[in-house]
């Protein structure tokens, strides 16, 4: 009898294992190599494309947030987002970062970490945590309160929102976890193997991934400048460890093989920016018409902006379309077509900057890192160090444009070393340390992040409540927030401070929590987030 039972136990237990081995779904893969998960996760930084869902990422929401910060506005009057309105009705607008975080990267990233651990591919584990840290920070920057502790619980029906401070704490702890794994060697760690997954990002270089993590940490401290316990020294520390040369820039790259997934979201193939035109604010900023940089014609203008038939840089005002802009002053669209053209050209030869099909898309740059450093030193009171970092920030941005985005810029207007040094020698642009202001730093940072990172620009502008002043002078000089009829009526005369969570995720299935946090109110988009409050 004992023998029989023992035999049965052995048979049954070995059966169980056999059952699981045999019982993988034969119709589709239930486990794939971690190397094949990372490309899709990286694709989510900008705009995803998979058999299950696409356009998750920062670029799609950037179309609307770019309007809030006046990178661009709509070429016809009456756009809700030009007016700083939030998404309304049954719309997933401004929900792409949400979908990116919870679904697009979501469980793919969790599994890459789990399976990476099993296979001792610590580099993949570290990269997973690095991206997750960035993703949490970006998510909370856009939405404020989000689902943190209960995220990814696949047995739950309703999900509780957590406050933003906890998200910041999580970003940091996940970032440190990322660093510890990125430091590990042995096991299945190898640059060649990592490059299979991150070929279109850092191409297998964990040192660069670590710098990315440090710069994410710097962002997390820098964003809390309004807080009583703001720590400029933490910003400085992580900036110094972070991305400081353009070679280390965190940049999503595109294979550009003529399909949606491998094309830049803002290029003509994707056709997403047809109705967007540069604003008067950014055009003035780059053409010497801004109060802080009066008379400084910026040589980067031709890289970033579009000309008009007068061959000048002018722009439109939010919610007004072409109203008040003479025909000859109306800028081309971002693909080089006429002002009135919204359709994309078949070729991207007339396109520049990130508006080309194969153009790399910066996620976090050395230039941004330097501007964070400049602001931290400035706030700390070290104006000399602030000035150096400020100048480095401009210089690195120019270098990045020259290296990555010269295509399409006529030779005569390309930035040569001479042009660059003359520009940097302009004392209106780079004043003496004693004359440096926050306005200098934040406006130059605005230029350095133009178009590719409206979310971080929005975070900056919200820290300064759009129109905060320093010594009686508006930091974002000449920035005119929409008001009166140009401000979305349901906003109740308040400016925009957050996006509502994704409609088809939350507004149908998580209503009780939305009610608790006030997200059912029509002016929820104007509720100031914790990070920018004093």
């Amino acid at each position: 009898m004992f023998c029989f039972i023992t035999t049965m136990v052995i048979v049954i237990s070995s059966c169980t294992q056999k059952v699981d081995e045999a019982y993988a779904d034969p119709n589709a893969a239930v486990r794939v190599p971690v190397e094949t998960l990372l490309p899709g996760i990286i694709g989510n930084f900008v705009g995803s494309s998979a058999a299950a869902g696409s356009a998750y990422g920062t670029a799609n929401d950037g179309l609307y947030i770019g309007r809030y910060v006046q990178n661009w506005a709509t070429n016809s009057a009456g756009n809700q987002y030009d007016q700083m309105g939030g998404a309304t009705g049954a719309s997933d607008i401004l929900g792409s970062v949400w979908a990116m975080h919870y679904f697009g990267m979501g469980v793919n990233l969790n599994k890459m970490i789990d399976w990476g651990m099993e296979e001792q591919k610590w580099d993949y584990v570290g990269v997973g945590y690095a991206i997750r840290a960035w993703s949490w920070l970006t998510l909370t920057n856009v939405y404020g309160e989000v689902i943190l502790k209960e995220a990814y619980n696949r047995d739950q029906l309703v999900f509780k929102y957590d406050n933003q401070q906890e998200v910041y704490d999580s970003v940091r702890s996940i970032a440190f976890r990322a660093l510890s794994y990125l430091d590990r060697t042995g096991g299945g760690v190898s640059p060649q193997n990592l490059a299979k997954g991150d070929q279109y990002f850092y191409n297998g270089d964990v040192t660069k991934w670590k710098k990315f993590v440090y710069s994410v940490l710097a962002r997390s401290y820098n964003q809390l400048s309004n807080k009583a316990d703001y720590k400029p020294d933490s910003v400085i520390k992580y900036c110094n460890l972070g991305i400081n040369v353009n070679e280390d820039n965190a940049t999503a790259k595109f294979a550009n093989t003529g399909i949606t997934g491998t094309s830049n979201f803002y290029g003509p193939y994707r056709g997403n920016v047809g109705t967007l035109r540069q604003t008067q604010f950014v055009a003035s900023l780059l053409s010497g018409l801004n109060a802080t940089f009066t008379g400084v014609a910026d040589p980067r203008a031709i890289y970033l902006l579009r000309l008009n038939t007068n061959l000048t840089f002018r722009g439109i005002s939010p919610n007004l379309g072409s109203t008040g802009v003479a025909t000859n002053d109306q800028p081309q669209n971002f693909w080089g077509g006429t002002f009135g053209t919204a359709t994309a050209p078949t070729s991207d030869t007339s396109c520049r900057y990130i508006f080309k099909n194969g153009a790399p898309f910066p996620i976090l740059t050395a230039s941004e890192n330097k501007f964070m450093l400049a602001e931290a030193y400035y706030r700390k009171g070290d104006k000399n160090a602030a000035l150096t970092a400020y100048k480095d920030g401009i210089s690195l941005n120019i270098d990045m444009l020259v290296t990555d985005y010269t295509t399409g810029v006529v030779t005569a207007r390309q930035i040569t070393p001479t042009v660059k040094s003359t520009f940097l020698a302009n004392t209106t642009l780079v004043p003496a340390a004693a004359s440096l202001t926050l306005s200098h730093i934040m406006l130059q940072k605005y230029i350095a992040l133009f178009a590719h990172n409206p979310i971080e620009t929005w975070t900056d502008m919200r820290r300064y409540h759009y129109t905060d002043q320093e010594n009686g002078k508006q930091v974002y000089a000449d920035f005119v927030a929409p008001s009166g009829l140009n401000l979305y009526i349901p906003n109740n005369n308040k400016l925009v401070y957050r996006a509502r969570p994704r409609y088809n995720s939350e507004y149908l299935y998580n209503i009780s929590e939305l009610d608790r946090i006030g997200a059912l109110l029509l002016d929820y988009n104007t509720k100031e987030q914790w990070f920018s409050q004093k």
Partner: protein
Amino acid sequence: MNYTHRFESASTLPVQNRNYNYPGVSMSMIVSDIFPGLKKGNILSFWKLRTSLASTARLNTPYSTQSVFVNNFASGGGFSYGFTNANPDLKPEKQNTYELGTEIRLFKNRLSIDGAYYNTVNKGQIIQSFRLSYATGFVLNTQNAASTRNTGIELSINGAIVANKNFSWNTTLNFNKMWNKVVGMPLNVAEYYISDTWLYGNARAGLVLNGPTTSITGYGYARNANGDILIAPTTGLPVVDQRFLIRGDRNPAFTLGINNMLRYKNFKLSFLWDLKVGGDVFNATKMFMTAAGRSDLTADRYVPRVIKGVLNDGKQESATPTPNTISVIPAYNDAYYASTAMPEEAFIEKNINWLRLRDLTFAYAFPRNPFIGLKQVKTLEFFATGNDLFLFTNYTGADPAVNGNTAGTRGVGAFGFDYGTLAAPISVNIGARLGF
């Protein structure tokens, strides 16, 4: 008294939930044996009481615990998860049934009555492909999240009305009544539907918390608090409420089958009447034909009419709504018959009854061995059977006993959804039966 306990193991479940067990208890007593005095007077012949408590487990569909990868088209290619959260934590659904029954035989077994009451609760029913917050990490989810209750009465009466040597008449009545209810559904899922039942327009077998499991959810007329149909002031046509609310219940009030068997010497006649009372049917065929101008409903299209209702003019919820006075002639306004003015609700026919002669058989059995020399043949019988010879119903479509899909449809199926379904045909069989 009986006790059973089943131990089962299912490979479709994840390891931690794979082995499960459930008990079953049944108890019966023959009252007439315990108290033999009851049998006095030849009225009561037999009386039995029985009760049972049984559990069963129902399984998930194969592979519904494994999320699968789909192609990713980003630079570098690879894979990413599909929309569906195939939940690795699924457990088997539990079904508990409590049943109370009795069997009584009277007058030397000439009349027998068998009655039962049952109450079935399904817990942890697996809902597939329902949406939740993306915080699950997916868009569509699979969870043990619903529960339903079915209660019902079954009554069977069998009587040997006449039992002579040459003539006998036997009647059997089968009565059935069921109540059902969705007792548990995630509060944030307003409606869950089986997509296989969504055959036409905007009506389907949708489940709503506290609603019946046999409901029809669909678009209907928009109404004010008073119940008046709202009429668009610009067109004079009704405003459609584009929400999938419960607009009907397919569950009948009761069903009754009456089976008669008459025998006179060697002649046999049997017939089965089938009665159904109540239960709604969505007549999608009629809706389709109405929109195409082919239904009876459109015959009076040249007659001007004013649709009874109140104008949707801002005063519809006030004490004095504006009555509709806008005259429309459908022949000159085809929107009248379109789903935008005549929604699915208008084609859900309420309280459909039927009485049908399901089966009529006439048979003659020859006396023993009429075939001299064919000793192998023991019996010979000629018979004629007619199926569905008569149907009396208040349904305007072809046949109210419809199932819009096959028996394989999940949930309670698609009965009561009529979209181009053909009526059961009248069939006649004539044949001979030989017994060897």
